[in-house]
C-alpha cells in the first residue's frame, strides 16, 4: 500500500516538473508577452476643463482612444499653478500611472523633474518647451517629447489671419489679446504676428518695432497691446484679459461697435467675446478650435476666419507615450526626446469649417484613427516626425 502511494506521488511530482519545464520552454521560444494585453494608465494634466478646445481633446482620448486601446486615462482637475500640478502628479503616481501627458504649463521643468525622479514617462501635448528647456531636458530618460504649435507657428498663425483681412483691403482693426496681460506666450506671439502683418501691409511700425521684435515690445509693456496707427493701418481698439465683469463686457461691446473698426481679430475666445456684440458687416477672425457653435457662427456670417487646433492632434503624443510604456521609446538619432511642431487647420468659409468639424468631432472615424496611430508605436524618429509634420486636413485624410 505504502509502496504504491510512493509510486503515485513520484509520478505526480514528475508530471508537475514536466509541465513546469514545458511552460518555461514555451516562454523562451521567442513569443514575448504582448504589452498591449496589460492596461496602461495615463494621467493627463490639464489647465483648462471648460473651453471648447479642452473638451474636444478630452473627448478624443476618452471617447475614441480609450475605446480602441487598452488604456485608462486619469484627468486632473483644472490646474491653475505649479503646486496644483505637483499635487496632480502625486495623485497619478499614487494611482500607478505609467505615463503623464501634460497640457498644463505653469511649471513644466518641475513636472519633468518630478516624472524623471519617479520614473514615469512624461510628454507635452499642445505645446512645446522653450529652446533652453529642451536643451536641459532632452536627454532625460523618461521625457518622451513634445508636440504642439511652437511659438513661431503661433506668430505665423496670427500673421496669416491678419494678412487675410489686410489682403482684402481692410485697414481698421480691433483686437482681443486674451491672456497676453498674464504673459501667456501663446497669446503674445499670436498678437505680435497680427501686428507684424499690419506693419508689413501699412509700411509702418508698431511703437517703433516690426516683425518678431514686437514680441519683446509687448512683453516690455506688461503684455498690453496699445492702439494707434501702424503706417496706413489703424488699430483702433484693444481688449485684454478675462475679467467677465461689466467693464470688460462694456469694452468688448465698445470695440466691436466702434465705427472706426472694420475687422475684429481675436487671439482666442473670439466666439464668446466679440461675436455677440459684432454688428452685421464687420469681420471677425479667431484662433480657437472647431465646434458646432463655431460652424454655426461661420454659417451665419458672424465668424469669417477660424484657425483651429484639431482634437486628434494629441493622438501622436499619446502613441509616443504608449510606445514608451511598451518599452519602445521614440528617440532622435542622438538618443534625445523629440520636439515637434504642429499647426492649425484654417477655415475661411462655413463649408470648410463644417468639413473640418465633422471629422474633428467624430468618435468613430477621427482625424487620427487607431490604424494610423498603430504605425507610430515603436516607429523610428524619422517616420514619427514625418507623420506629425503632415498635419493639414488634406494630408491626414489622403
Amino acid at each position, binding site marked *: 500500500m505504502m509502496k504504491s502511494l510512493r509510486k503515485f506521488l513520484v509520478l505526480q511530482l514528475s508530471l508537475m516538473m514536466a509541465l513546469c519545464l514545458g511552460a518555461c520552454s514555451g516562454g523562451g521560444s521567442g513569443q514575448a508577452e504582448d504589452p498591449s494585453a496589460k492596461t496602461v494608465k495615463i494621467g493627463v494634466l490639464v489647465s483648462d*476643463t*471648460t473651453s*471648447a478646445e479642452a*473638451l474636444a481633446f478630452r473627448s478624443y482620448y476618452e471617447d475614441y482612444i480609450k475605446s480602441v486601446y487598452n488604456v485608462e486615462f486619469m484627468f486632473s*482637475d*483644472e490646474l491653475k499653478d505649479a503646486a496644483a500640478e505637483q499635487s496632480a502628479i502625486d495623485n497619478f503616481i499614487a494611482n500607478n500611472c505609467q505615463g503623464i501627458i501634460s497640457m498644463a504649463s505653469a511649471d513644466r521643468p518641475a513636472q519633468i523633474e518630478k516624472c524623471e525622479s519617479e520614473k514615469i514617462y512624461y510628454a507635452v501635448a499642445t505645446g512645446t518647451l522653450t529652446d533652453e528647456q529642451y536643451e536641459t531636458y532632452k536627454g532625460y530618460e523618461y521625457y518622451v517629447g513634445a508636440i504642439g504649435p511652437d511659438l513661431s507657428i503661433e506668430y505665423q498663425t496670427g500673421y496669416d489671419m491678419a494678412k487675410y483681412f489686410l489682403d482684402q483691403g481692410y485697414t481698421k482693426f480691433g483686437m482681443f489679446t486674451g491672456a497676453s*496681460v498674464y504673459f501667456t506666450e501663446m497669446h503674445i506671439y499670436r498678437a505680435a504676428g497680427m501686428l507684424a502683418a499690419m506693419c508689413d501691409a501699412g509700411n509702418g511700425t508698431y511703437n517703433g518695432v516690426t516683425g518678431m521684435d514686437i514680441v519683446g515690445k509687448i512683453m516690455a509693456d*506688461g503684455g*498690453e497691446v496699445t*492702439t494707434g496707427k501702424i503706417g496706413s493701418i489703424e488699430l483702433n481698439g484693444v481688449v*485684454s*484679459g478675462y*475679467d*467677465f*465683469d*461689466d*467693464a*470688460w*463686457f*462694456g*469694452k*468688448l*461691446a*465698445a470695440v466691436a*461697435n466702434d465705427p472706426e473698426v472694420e475687422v475684429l481679430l481675436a487671439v482666442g475666445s473670439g*466666439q*464668446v*467675446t466679440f*461675436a*455677440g*456684440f459684432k454688428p452685421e458687416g464687420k469681420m471677425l477672425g479667431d484662433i480657437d478650435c472647431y*465646434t*458646432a*457653435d463655431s460652424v*454655426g*457662427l461661420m454659417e*451665419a456670417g*458672424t465668424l469669417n476666419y477660424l484657425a483651429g487646433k484639431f482634437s486628434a492632434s494629441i493622438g501622436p503624443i499619446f502613441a509616443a507615450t504608449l510606445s514608451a510604456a511598451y518599452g519602445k521609446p521614440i528617440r532622435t538619432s542622438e538618443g534625445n526626446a523629440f520636439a515637434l511642431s504642429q499647426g492649425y487647420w484654417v477655415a475661411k468659409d462655413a463649408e470648410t469649417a463644417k468639413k473640418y468639424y465633422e471629422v474633428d468631432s467624430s468618435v468613430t472615424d477621427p482625424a487620427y484613427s487607431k490604424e494610423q496611430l498603430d504605425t507610430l508605436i515603436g516607429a523610428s524618429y524619422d517616420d514619427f516626425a514625418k507623420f506629425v509634420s503632415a498635419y493639414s486636413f488634406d494630408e491626414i485624410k489622403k
Partner: protein
Amino acid sequence: MSRGKRIAGALAIPAGVLIVCMLISMSCGVSLFGSPLSRITFVRAGANVLLVTFALSINLNSGRFDFSIGSAALLSSVISSMITLKLNAGPVVMLILSVVIGGILGLLSGFVYVTVKLPPIIVSLGMALFYEGMAFTLTGGHGVSFASNTALLGFGTVTNYLLISAAALILMIAVFDHTSFGYEYKALVSGQKVAVNTGIREVPNALICYLIAGALMGAQGFISATNNGAITMSLNFGSISPMFMAFLPMFIGGFIGRYTSDKVGYLLGALTSATISLTYIRLDIPSSTQQIVSALLMVTFLIYLNNEGKLKQLLKH
C-alpha cells in the same frame, strides 16, 4: 432729519462719484455718456449690479452667506436658454423661464439649508458646486451659444434694462416693506431668538428669502446671457465671482439707507458702481488698474464707515 437733508444725504455719494467721473473723463477729452452704447452699458451694469446686490443682501442681512447665487444664475440661464432655443421662442419667454427656474433653484438651496441645518456657508458652497456641475453636464461643458440669435441679443435696450430694474425694486419694496412676511423678516434680522419666541416661523421665512434671491439671480443670469450671446461654464467655484461685484454697492447702499429706504440705497449704490464701470470703459483703463482702483475705493469706504464717529469728532474740533 429734514427732507432736504435726507435727499442730500442719499444723493451725496452717487452724485459725487458721477461728478468726479465726469470731470476725469472730460479732462481726458472723453464724454462719459457720449454714445448710445455708453448709455446701454451704464444701465445694463446698473441692472446687473442691482439684481446681485438685492439677491445677496436678502440672505446676508439675516446672517446667511449664500455663495450659490452666481451658480443659480448660471444654471437658470443655461436651462432657460436651452428651452428657449429649442422652442425658437423670444427673450420674454427666456426671461420668465430664467426667473422661475432661478426661484426654484433658490428654493432648493434654502430647502437644503433648513433640512441639513449646517452653516449656510458650507451648504451654499456645496450647492454652488452642484449647480455648476449640473450646468456643465447639461451642456456637455460647451456652454450655450446664441451669438447669431438677433431676437435674444436684441433684448439689450435701455428701456428693457430699466424695466427689469424697476420691477426688481418694486418687488423688493412691496415684499419686504409692505407685507407681513417683510415685517417678520425684519424682526428675524433684528433678533432671531426674540422673533422666534414671539411666534415668527423662521423656516418658511428663510425659504421665501432663498426663493426671491434665486428669482433675482435668474433675471441677472438672463441679462448676462443675452448681453453677449454666450454662456461659458464655470467649475470649482468659478461662479462665485459675480457675487463680489455686489459688495461695494451693498456697503454704499447700507450707508445711504440711513437717509432713505435701504432698497433705494442699493439702487443708488448700483448706479454708483455702474458709473465707475463706465468710466473704466470710456477711459480704456487696463483691468489690472481697474482692480486696484476698485479695491482702494472699497477699502477707503470701509475705513470711513469704521471711523465715522472719530472723523466727525475731529471735524467738530
